[in-house]
């Protein structure tokens, strides 16, 4: 039996809830994509999403971890904050890995979590978790909204904090009663943060000192990190390096900030860096770090890190300067502003012998790998992908061997094409990050290079790939093992392969097909070029199961505890 209910026409103001107000703040921030997953505490927000005719797209993941890694990929390629919505309790705790990942790699994210109603917070209510407590150490800042009046201000502040200075994740916890509250009011969103004033412009005195140090240098070196990418200073870096003939090494996350194929480029430095880059770090007399944080995977044993160098460090975060390496010339500034200031200086260049030595190292000790008769050699595979995509694809990875091989062999010539989990080293990052990257850059070729281990941590997101019709190419570098764990067990644990070899893996081709996605398996190098050509010319998503040699190791390598000059596996 149907009830005859009279439908009252609703006016806009009558139906304004906290959630509607919230959606309006996102529109004001020009958000175009939201990565989320609904649940009890965010029902009012999702109702507002449904009713709103806002110009943003909501991307429904299959696990909140998928949402947040996608938001990271989006943020990395667009430079704009990635926006995530999750429900309270398990929804929020499923985000933790991604939030920490974004914190370590300085990615701007604004994460909205639902919370149980204000009145029951602290009573262990259903799906209650102390989100503020849990996320305090892994966010740049976090909020719990206390009243509907402060909601617009809090959201505006959150976007400001996430995207300025050294970027990072900001969590906003919204109790359900506030998003459900009906209101007709409009509230101010003006804010003042006296304790948060990032210093963008360099101190002129420090720039002068730096220019003088470079003028006296016989063996100068630039180490370019992700800070160059965040401040969009790649053009300035190139101009600066070329003008004063300065060689450049990259950190893992800094790849793409300086053209990989540039003659002055020495390659990536660090644990699996090139001989030329690591020896340059070891021998240089002035080291200019631009936007890198001297991570232990870069420095190796600190006692042998740049032992002869006067260190200068440009960073927007003063706390990174002098944290690990004593620094003679600190420059607290945005990389772009600092480079622009340096470009106005008259710096003498007198280091021809140094340049020659570096070029010699580059030519004499290049990266190397063995080809294989059976299966694919993984390094060759990355080389092939580089060739086919003309070095112009956006590449995402997880962590481990495939990540290092991609960093080594996919020479990034342009900024913001490289999306990887550096600081936290998160398995399962690459594939969802590729979804976010493709949504952020719909016209670009996006390739997820993942391991068979990492892919299985977040492969449920294949549904999203299908649903959103995203033409991401997923390259599984499948060695049926946790390759890097296996490598360390081979090198440092006398080949005791404890729990690092997979006995069973799914049939990735059938798996892809069950999601309605094209799946291909490549097992021989002879077949690979043609099959890869087919993959890359296909207009849609493809999952490619590439069977690679299990026993391949990543070289060269600085063993843990060793110095930059103690690399192993430099020569074949």
């Amino acid at each position, binding site marked *: 039996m149907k009830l005859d209910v009279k439908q009252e026409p609703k006016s806009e103001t009558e139906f304004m809830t906290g959630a509607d107000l919230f959606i309006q703040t996102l529109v004001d921030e020009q958000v175009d994509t939201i990565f989320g997953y609904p649940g009890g505490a965010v029902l009012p927000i999702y109702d507002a999403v449904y009713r709103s005719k806002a110009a943003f797209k909501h991307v429904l993941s299959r696990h909140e971890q998928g949402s947040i890694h996608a938001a990271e990929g989006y943020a990395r390629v667009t430079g704009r904050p990635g926006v995530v919505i999750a429900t309270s309790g398990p929804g929020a705790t499923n985000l933790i890995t991604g939030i920490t990942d974004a914190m370590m790699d300085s990615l701007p994210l604004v994460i909205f979590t639902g919370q149980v109603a204000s009145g029951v917070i602290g009573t262990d209510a259903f799906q209650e978790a102390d989100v503020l407590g849990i996320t305090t150490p892994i966010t740049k800042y*976090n909020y719990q909204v*206390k009243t509907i009046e402060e909601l617009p201000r809090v959201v505006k502040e959150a976007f400001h904090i996430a995207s300025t200075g050294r970027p990072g994740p900001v969590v906003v916890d919204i109790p359900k009663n506030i998003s459900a509250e009906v209101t007709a009011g409009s509230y101010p969103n003006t804010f003042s*943060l006296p*304790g*948060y004033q990032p210093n963008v412009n360099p101190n002129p005195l420090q720039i002068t000192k730096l220019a003088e140090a470079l003028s006296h240098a016989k063996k100068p070196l630039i180490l370019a990190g992700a800070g160059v990418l965040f401040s969009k200073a790649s053009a300035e870096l190139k101009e600066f390096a070329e003008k004063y003939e300065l060689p450049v090494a990259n950190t893992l996350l800094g790849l793409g900030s300086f053209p990989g194929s540039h003659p002055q480029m020495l390659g990536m430095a660090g644990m699996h860096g090139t001989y030329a880059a690591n020896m340059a770090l070891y021998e240089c007399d002035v080291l200019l770090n631009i936007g890198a944080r001297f991570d232990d995977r870069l420095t190796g044993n600190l006692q042998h890190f740049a032992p002869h160098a006067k260190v200068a460090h440009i960073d927007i975060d003063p*706390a990174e300067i*002098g944290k690990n390496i004593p620094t003679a010339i600190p420059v607290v500034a945005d990389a772009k502003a600092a480079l622009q200031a340096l470009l106005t200086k008259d710096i003498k260049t007198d280091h021809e012998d140094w340049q020659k030595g570096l070029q010699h190292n580059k030519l004499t000790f290049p990266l190397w790998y063995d080809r294989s008769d059976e299966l694919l050699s993984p390094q060759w595979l990355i080389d092939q992908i580089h060739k086919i995509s003309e070095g112009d694809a956006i590449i995402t990875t997880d962590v481990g061997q495939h990540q290092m091989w991609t960093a080594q062999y996919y020479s990034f010539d342009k900024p913001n094409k490289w999306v990887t989990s550096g600081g936290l080293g998160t398995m399962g990052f690459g594939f969802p990050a590729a979804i976010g990257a493709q949504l952020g850059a719909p016209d670009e070729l996006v390739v997820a290079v993942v391991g068979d281990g990492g892919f299985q941590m977040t492969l449920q997101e294949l549904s999203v790939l299908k649903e959103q019709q995203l033409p991401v190419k997923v390259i599984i570098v499948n060695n049926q093992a946790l390759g890097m764990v296996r490598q360390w067990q081979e090198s440092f644990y006398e080949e005791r392969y404890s729990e690092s070899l997979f006995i069973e893996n799914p049939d990735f081709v059938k798996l892809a097909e069950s999601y309605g996605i094209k799946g291909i398996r490549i097992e021989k190098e002879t077949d690979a070029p043609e099959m890869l050509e087919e993959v890359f010319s296909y207009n849609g998503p493809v999952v490619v199961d590439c069977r690679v040699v299990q026993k391949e190791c990543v070289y060269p390598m600085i063993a843990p505890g060793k110095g930059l000059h103690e690399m192993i596996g430099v020569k074949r």
Partner: protein
Amino acid sequence: MKRIITATVQDRSGVLNRITGMLHKRQFNIDSISVGKSETEGISKMTFVIEVSDHQNLEQLTKQLNKQIDVIKVSDITDKAIVARELALIKVGSNGHQRAEIQGIISPFRASVIDVSKESMTIQVTGKPDKVEALIELLHPYGIKELTKTGVTAFLRGHQPKTVTDLHATPL
């Protein structure tokens, strides 16, 4: 080395948790923290006594504190002319005839007795940490039943001497 650090912070929810969490995460050893409202509405003052290993460690400490969004100003006032005080409540065991003796001990410290029972008395003392420590030491033989301290709170004196010798001549 022990440093006395003050921080002016925005009085937002979770600020103490955020700061102590950071100190814990970065392995700084906190001797004491005292927090209270300042002369300005919405602004609180924190005083930390923290053990640091060297100057680089100290620099990291002040930088990490400064990095906190809620922190407006950080000062290491250890080497300045400052007034620094803490308050301690000390409950000691005492029978009738010991009371006069204890009175005699605490009076040079300008401490006072704020509670007396049959078997105990509670003493309140305010001052620099070493003065408070000295009194606790003297009271030990009587049996300390309970002890609580507020932690140091401090700020700069109105007049800062210009030379180092002046500085050392200034009593805390």
